[in-house]
């Protein structure tokens, strides 16, 4: 158990490339913290620096108040679970889990007891004498976890531990990882590129981009109060809709029509010295099929009419995709997000809007539908630097 402090930690490679820049994170004892971001954002490098597998070129890393920059991985008392599991193929499951204990010269009896205990927790009891080659992906993943927990280390580091599992198993393992961490109460740093994993697992989430920390906060805080376009677009699935807009006369002119500004939004935008041209962000769930709402509710929001391009029914709710004529929002951050998700250049001749409608909606594909949305839930961003204009503390 330990508190881990990253104090302006940086990583510059010998060729001059800056992989991680001035990362400041204080990870509390027992906390489950997630580093999330697109590939190449520096999250794995940060994890490797905490592990001691990569040198820290700037700043200080403290574990329990002690500077550990120069310590070898084995002297940091940290366990790590690798994306590939990295099990020793020539050792049985039992030997794999016992390996760290044997290196620490723990006596045989204690080793046996701890391995049996870990095997019981992870439900690996009947596989102890098998080799990793004869195990399924999920079992291998559990062995990797077991090797980490037998030692009672100060902290766990996990580098995309679930990304090699199939979708169903991944969801299942996600729950067990969360349960295990709560039970053991060990400080955990978890790296993933999957925002769903980040949202569901972490006490706090650190969103990284290009070696820089974008925002640190609880999953809900990141979702409700993203500090910039990148975080807004990265967190949430389906992701936030972005449209170009103009602020004028207490109104917001958007491709969806003029939207009245609520008092709250106006106050925040004024405080943030919003420019005339902005990007407006709307989460899919803040839309609703206008036909399902009564007059009072309709009056409290804004509506627009558009043709449904694609309708996906999830059973619990429906995702309706609309194509809105006009300009699309552009910014460096949005381009990067689009490149990451592979959706670049998918829409031409307008912006695509994803809406999450009630399952009761009778809108069908190809229909011209009237859709309502809540103008108080919208986010405004400055297109020049991506910062939010509607951030409230």
């Amino acid at each position, binding site marked *: 158990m330990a508190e881990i402090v990253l104090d302006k930690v940086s990583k510059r490679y010998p060729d001059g490339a800056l992989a991680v820049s001035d990362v400041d994170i204080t990870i509390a004892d027992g906390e489950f913290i997630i580093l999330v971001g697109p590939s190449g954002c520096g999250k794995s490098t940060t994890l490797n620096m905490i*592990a001691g*597998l990569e040198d820290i070129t700037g700043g200080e890393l403290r574990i329990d108040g002690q500077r550990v920059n120069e310590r070898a991985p*084995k002297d940091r008392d940290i366990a790590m679970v690798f994306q*590939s599991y*990295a*099990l020793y193929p020539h050792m049985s499951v039992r030997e794999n889990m016992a390996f760290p204990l044997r290196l620490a010269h723990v006596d045989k009896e204690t080793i046996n007891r701890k391995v049996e205990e870990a095997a019981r927790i992870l439900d690996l009891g009947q596989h102890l004498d098998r080799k990793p080659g004869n*195990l399924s992906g999920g079992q*291998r993943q559990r062995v990797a976890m077991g090797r980490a927990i037998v*030692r009672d280390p100060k902290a766990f580091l996990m580098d995309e531990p679930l990304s090699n599992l199939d979708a169903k198993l991944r969801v299942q393992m996600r729950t067990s990882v969360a349960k295990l961490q709560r039970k053991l109460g060990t400080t955990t740093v978890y790296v993933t590129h999957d925002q769903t994993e980040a949202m569901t697992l972490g006490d706090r989430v650190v969103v990284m981009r290009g070696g820089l920390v974008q925002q640190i906060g609880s999953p809900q805080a990141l979702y409700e109060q993203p500090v910039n376009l990148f975080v807004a677009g990265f967190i949430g699935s389906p992701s936030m809709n972005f449209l170009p807009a103009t602020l004028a006369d207490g109104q917001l002119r958007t491709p969806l029509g003029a939207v009245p500004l609520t008092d709250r939004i106006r106050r925040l935008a004024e405080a943030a010295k919003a420019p005339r041209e902005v990007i407006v962000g709307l989460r899919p769930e803040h839309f609703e099929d206008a036909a399902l709402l009564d007059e009072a509710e309709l009056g409290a929001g804004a509506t627009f009419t558009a043709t449904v391009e694609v309708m996906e029914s999830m059973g619990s709710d429906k995702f309706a995709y609309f194509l809105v004529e006009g300009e699309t929002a552009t910014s460096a951050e949005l381009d990067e997000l689009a490149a990451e998700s592979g959706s670049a250049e998918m829409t031409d001749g307008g912006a695509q809007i994803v809406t999450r409608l009630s399952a009761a909606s009778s809108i069908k594909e190809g229909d011209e539908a009237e859709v309502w949305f809540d103008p108080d839930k919208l986010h405004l961003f400055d297109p020049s630097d991506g910062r939010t204009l509607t951030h409230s503390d």
Partner: protein
Amino acid sequence: MAVLGGTERAAKVRWSLINIVVLVYALVPVLWIVSLSFKTKETLTDKNFIPREWTLQNYADIFTTNQFLRALLNSVGIAVIATLIAVVLGTMAAYAIARLDFPGKRLLVGVSLLIAMFPQVSLVTPLFEMERSLGLFDTWPGLILPYITFALPLAIYTLSAFFREIPWELEKAAKMDGATPAQAFRRVIAPLAAPGVFTTAILVFIFCWNDFLFAISLTSTTSSRTVPAALSFFQGSSQFEDPTGTVSAAAVVITVPIILFVLFFQRRIVAGLTSGAVKG
């Protein structure tokens, strides 16, 4: 389907025929030597593939002469020592080449390749002169040293290919589990590289065992002459006696250790030993 089956069978037959031709081509000379070694002196030149009169006299003869036993001892000793040293040095060099980035790495690999390609014949005379002035001529080290030199490039090449196949993450995992770099190598990397090490050992051993050029040039007495060289000094008891039978018997005898060596180590070359280490 029937047509397809027919062409498949035809292909099988064709391949079997080709295989048989190759096998016969390779094995006939070997079997001929075996046959010669069992023939009596009188029937040696009777042109029969299967001896009409079987005898073990040739084998008895070579084992009664001190010359052959001594050569056998030299061969085994020199080949085993050279293999051991070459494999240990090769393992370390290959590990460094596969894992580390250090200045001059490409140069090192290039130079070792150069050594492997260098015509050995052109080195015999300088080596002969050097060894004579150093007092290494006609000694075990006098053969072990050049064998190591020429076996190392082979060892480094084979081994670095094996090391590259071992997932890098295993070593990181070992480090995280509390191993020192030496422990990580000994307990994780070395066991996984074992098939590669055995393969390399076989190749190096065969190279040393079969060498004739250095053996004949850098030795002059039975104190360090290896079997391939000693065979060429075999002679009959008189000028008119043909040593073919004894030479054949000796050739058969020195082939046996190679076959045993390969069979013994082949069982350790377990394919896919690293399976299960990473995802999969």
